[in-house]
């Protein structure tokens, strides 16, 4: 415990905690919608795309790769959600195609043009999230805070519309709701969250951050509002616990958080079954 208190005094640990908790909060918000719209894999696909774009940014030696990664990922999110509707290649196949394609190209580019001596280390840290969350700079924390506020505020403002479009897109469309526009907004927010979360858990583990809290909350609660709130709270707690454990034991941050999320799901599942059996 003393050790923990001592660590908490250190600025970069504080930064990591703030950033981690905010990212976890944002990523859990849209989880419910993505799971229910059968878009769980979009997170995964987009993060691979972001990985590919990051590789391009690295090759181009961009000092601030966010400027390239963010807009391109948003573009891909929009394209992916579009293809989900009515095209020849079905939604899941399109996602699988684009995501593995981007992953392969990203790794290829890094291999050919890399100047760094520790290539596999670089790749590994982009994929699984390194300890880089602990080396996060003050400026990055600021970006993280601003984007989180944007995500949370737009989620609250569009909450009722997101619900309507998720529950029954046909009805929403028929009664004159601009369902296409709101799907677009969902896509953009998802892309922003994914680029944010790449810093924390790396691109392979992002979907865990998006779907675990939502699935856990769905075991326990039955209205959309309570599920959303519960998944946000769960995600916060799991991220906090995960980061603290990883600091204390020296395990990789990303996988520790995901493991905590998985444990959270297990607990919720057991509790949910218990409650269900009582009825």
């Amino acid at each position: 415990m003393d050790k923990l208190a001592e660590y908490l005094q250190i600025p970069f640990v504080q930064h990591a905690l703030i950033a981690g908790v905010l990212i976890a909060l944002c990523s859990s918000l849209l989880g419910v919608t993505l799971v229910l719209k059968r878009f769980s894999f979009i997170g995964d696909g987009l993060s691979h795309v972001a990985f590919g774009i990051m590789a391009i940014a690295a090759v181009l030696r961009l000092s601030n790769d966010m400027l390239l990664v963010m807009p391109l990922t948003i573009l891909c999110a929009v394209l992916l959600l579009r293809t989900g509707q009515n095209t020849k290649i079905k939604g899941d196949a399109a996602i699988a195609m684009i995501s593995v394609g981007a992953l392969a190209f990203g790794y290829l580019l890094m291999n050919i043009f890399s100047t760094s001596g520790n290539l596999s280390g670089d790749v590994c840290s982009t994929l699984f999230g390194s300890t880089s969350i602990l080396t996060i700079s003050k400026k990055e924390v600021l970006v993280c805070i601003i984007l989180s506020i944007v995500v949370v505020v737009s989620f609250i403002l569009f909450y009722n519309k997101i619900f309507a479009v998720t529950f029954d897109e046909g009805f929403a469309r028929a009664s004159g709701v601009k369902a296409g526009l709101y799907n677009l907004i969902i896509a953009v927010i998802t892309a922003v969250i994914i680029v944010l979360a790449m810093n924390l858990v790396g691109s392979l583990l992002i979907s865990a951050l998006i779907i675990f809290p939502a699935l856990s909350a769905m075991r326990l609660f039955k209205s959309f509002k309570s599920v959303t709130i519960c998944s946000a709270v769960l995600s916060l707690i799991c991220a906090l616990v995960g980061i603290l454990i990883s600091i204390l034991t020296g395990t990789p941050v990303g996988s520790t958080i995901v493991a905590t999320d998985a444990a959270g799901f297990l607990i919720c599942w057991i509790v949910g079954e218990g409650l269900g059996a009582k009825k």
Partner: protein
Amino acid sequence: MSLITVKNLSVGYEGKAVEEDISFEVGKGDYLCIVGENGSGKSTLMKTLLNLVESISGEILFGDGLKKNEIGYLPQQTQVQRDFPASVTEIVMSGFQARCGWRPFYTKEEKQEALAHMERLAILPLKDRCYRELSGGQQQRVLLARALCATQKLILLDEPVSGLDPKVTIEMYELIRELNKSGTTVIMITHDIEAALRYASHILHFGNRIFFGTREEYMESDEGSFFLQRMEVRKNG
């Protein structure tokens, strides 16, 4: 002036017509039943009326001050809804979305109105229950309440009784009749020609040829008398 006038309409997907040359009119307070075999284009016609599918040719005219977003819709249930965590109130309220525009939240008046619709359809006691735990008939009532939140002028129902047991089916039909009597125009797709003959004021039949007319005209037509005879045989035999 009719609420909806359809002239020589062809409906279908991607340019391929499922049914051609449909013409009919729906006046205020009418109860139109669309009957016909599977795949005859009933649902496609409804989706075209709702602007979910583009028409291939022909015209749909909205009259009598009816706006495009003043149509309530009771769709067939989708797969997503079976495991969706949502309370009854949340779903009913989402019917107001169209009139919200950019406004992010619902008003107090809208909340009252939603409660009133739930009361009318006898689902008020269920308002905090989870949608997926309700029975089929209750779920249909919830969706009907949502349609009423969207509008009370005109509702389109796509097979509202499919999968319901006989008793609940009759309750559902009575409910729709009451709505119609209190001034809501109803357009309903159904397989159930007996029900169509009992409740509808007008009938649109898709078969070898398209029939449109009042119920009385339908009973005298070739299509209608064919079914009437069969019903007679069943009753007497």
